[in-house]
């Protein structure tokens, strides 16, 4: 894990002092809400329907046990006892008071955390593969590059008033677990023919109302030009990105309107110029950062054997753990999508991504004891313990069961991504959370039979719930003052990224739950061999689903 030196700490402390001063001026009235708004947004503070919401950065989704514990403590001390993990690998608190915010930021700074640039028209928190450093299928750990970019993008004076928000993602394996090509800049660390490590830049992806899969802009940027090339990409965007219409202001529209070739040409020109200025940190800086991400002290000679005689444990191991690069270890996923069975047999689904302060502290303790003090937040709103000995899995599972954190449903239909929706968000047109809960409750018994099915719900066109990238996507819209839900099929993030298509007219809340159920029935009736829902859909197309749902 990256640890701050006195420079990093001084920068974060300075930010806390700056925001404390800005908040004071706002409360005194010398700073207007109009002028304060972008300043608070760049510290993660939104004004939502009922209260302020604070979004705390978890850079590239990695955090330590003591950082996680602090997140739990903040939930209890300043919020209503819970936090909400987001699709940007961050955590949000929904019931925050403006006057408490400087103190919360100071608490965060005490454990090397912050809320810098988690919102606003600037370079946002950098996201990365949640299995980085643990998975066998990666070329190299992508997080040192993400940390280098974090420092470069923090308070970059030229890029704090961009046309629109700007999201960067870094991965280093062909299996894309971070929806890399749906970012403004997606970087894949690659090896070229000469065996050198470098970065492939995909620019101009994104979701929102115009979803676009980012095209490859440069296949190989050497590591000692990573910052310079990023700066060139950003400068062209800052200068020429549209500012006349906020719905056309993302870089994807600029790349689309200029054309890939012309955008690349302008970036190359700017890149050639910036290369003459020596703005690139030396490779020694990258090497310094890399030392923080060295492998933990894995034990050697461990057995991969597991006693799977307990069926509930076996199901959890099968669904929620992934292969680790080191023999005798596993990657553990903790689902934050519980579906409780009540005494009368009815089901009660949780709010996707929510955890109580107590649950957050339990996960922090588990990380300390069983995972080399490390956790990850995933864009699917779950938590990962990246390095757990297989010999400890049963104990970890028992503790998770006791904390109601052992739902064995990773990537199943009940592992739903949902934005906060109209229950919290000022932008939303429809509620997302109750729809997610109803679907999870209806489908829980079928989840295992259906297998992998990524269901994603957004409460408005801004697509925070990634509905475009869901095998099944749901988009909440406002139809003549009523909440209405559109059904999309066939989206996918990952190496085979595709965008979902709207199947037909929308539904009310109960109607969309029924439509999802019918779609799964069509899949089960048509499935061949080991096909997932997505595979069957791609093979048979939209029509059989349409007929079953509207016929």
């Amino acid at each position, binding site marked *: 894990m990256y640890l701050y030196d006195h*420079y990093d700490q001084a*920068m974060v402390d300075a930010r806390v002092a700056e925001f404390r001063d800005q908040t004071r001026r706002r409360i005194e009235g010398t700073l207007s809400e109009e002028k304060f708004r972008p300043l608070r947004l760049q510290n993660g503070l939104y004004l939502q329907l009922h209260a302020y919401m604070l979004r705390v950065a978890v850079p590239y989704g990695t955090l330590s046990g003591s950082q996680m514990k602090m997140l739990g403590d903040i939930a209890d001390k300043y919020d209503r006892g819970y936090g909400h993990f987001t699709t940007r690998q961050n955590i949000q608190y929904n019931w925050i008071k403006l006057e408490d915010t400087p103190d919360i930021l100071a608490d965060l700074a005490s454990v090397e955390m912050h809320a810098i640039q988690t919102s606003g028209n600037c370079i946002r928190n950098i996201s990365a593969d949640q299995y980085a450093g643990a998975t066998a299928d990666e070329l190299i750990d992508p997080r040192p590059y993400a940390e280098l970019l974090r420092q470069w993008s923090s308070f970059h*004076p*030229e890029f704090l008033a961009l046309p629109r928000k700007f999201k960067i993602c870094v991965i280093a394996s062909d299996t894309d677990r971070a929806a890399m090509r749906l970012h403004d800049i997606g970087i894949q660390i690659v090896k070229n023919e000469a065996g050198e490590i470098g970065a492939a830049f995909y620019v101009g992806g994104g979701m929102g109302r115009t979803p676009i899969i980012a095209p490859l802009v440069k296949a190989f940027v050497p590591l000692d030009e990573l910052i310079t090339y990023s700066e060139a990409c950003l400068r062209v965007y800052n200068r020429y990105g549209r500012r006349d219409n906020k719905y056309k202001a993302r870089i994807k529209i600029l790349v689309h309107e200029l054309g890939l070739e012309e955008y690349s040409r302008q970036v190359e020109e700017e890149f050639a110029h910036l290369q003459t200025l020596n*703005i690139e940190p030396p490779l020694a800086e990258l090497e310094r950062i890399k030392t923080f991400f060295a492998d933990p002290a894995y034990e050697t000679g461990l057995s991969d054997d597991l006693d799977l005689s307990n069926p509930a444990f076996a199901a959890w191991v099968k669904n929620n753990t992934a292969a680790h690069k080191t023999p005798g270890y596993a990657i553990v996923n903790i689902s934050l999508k519980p579906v409780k069975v009540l005494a009368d047999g009815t089901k009660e689904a949780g709010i996707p991504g929510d955890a109580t302060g107590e649950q957050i502290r339990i996960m922090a303790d588990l990380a300390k004891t069983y995972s080399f003090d490390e956790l990850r937040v995933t864009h699917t709103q779950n938590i990962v313990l990246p390095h757990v000995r297989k010999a400890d899995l049963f104990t970890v599972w028992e503790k998770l069961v006791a904390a109601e954190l052992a739902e064995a449903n990773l990537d199943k239909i009940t592992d739903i991504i949902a934005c906060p929706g109209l229950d919290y968000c000022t932008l939303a047109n429809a509620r997302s959370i109750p729809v997610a809960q109803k679907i999870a409750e209806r489908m829980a018994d079928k989840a295992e039979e259906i297998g992998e099915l990524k269901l994603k719900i957004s409460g408005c066109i801004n697509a925070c719930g990634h509905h475009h990238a869901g095998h099944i996507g749901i988009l909440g819209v406002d139809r003549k003052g009523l909440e209405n839900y559109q059904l999309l099929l066939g989206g996918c993030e990952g190496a085979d990224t595709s965008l979902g298509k709207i199947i037909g007219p929308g539904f009310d809340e109960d109607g969309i739950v029924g439509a999802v159920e019918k779609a799964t029935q069509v899949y089960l009736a048509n499935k061949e061999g080991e096909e997932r829902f997505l595979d069957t859909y791609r093979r048979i197309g939209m029509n059989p689903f349409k007929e079953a749902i509207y016929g």
Partner: protein
Amino acid sequence: MADVQFLFREGEEAVSAPTVALSAFAEDTNATAVVIEPGEDARALIPHLDRLSLVEVTFPAFTDGRGFSSARILREAGYTGELRASGDIGVDMLSHLHRCGFDAIAPNAPLDLAQAETALKVWPQVYQATVVDGRKPIWALRHGL
């Protein structure tokens, strides 16, 4: 036009020459001061830098950051005359403007001096080499560069 409230040019006064629009500048060979609006290309001035004593970069709205790029581009090209930011400017922009190479600030409404002084001193160090601000970034300090 707003007055210059902050000038970071040792021993100098703000340039008082009349400014012309960028569109008129190429024709008007006597002009030594020019105004650039957010949508205009600062690089159009590069062939004429030696006859310029003032470039004023406007910020009609503080949320439009194109002027930050214009400033760095001019400084990177070697412009050493007065580089003035004018318009909708608040104290919280001051340190960023300064880092991008502005050395004169003319806000629409005068800023509180005590607040401005605090804002200019916010950052003990900086993460990026903008080159034009003359500050060593943290990575250079870490590695003794």
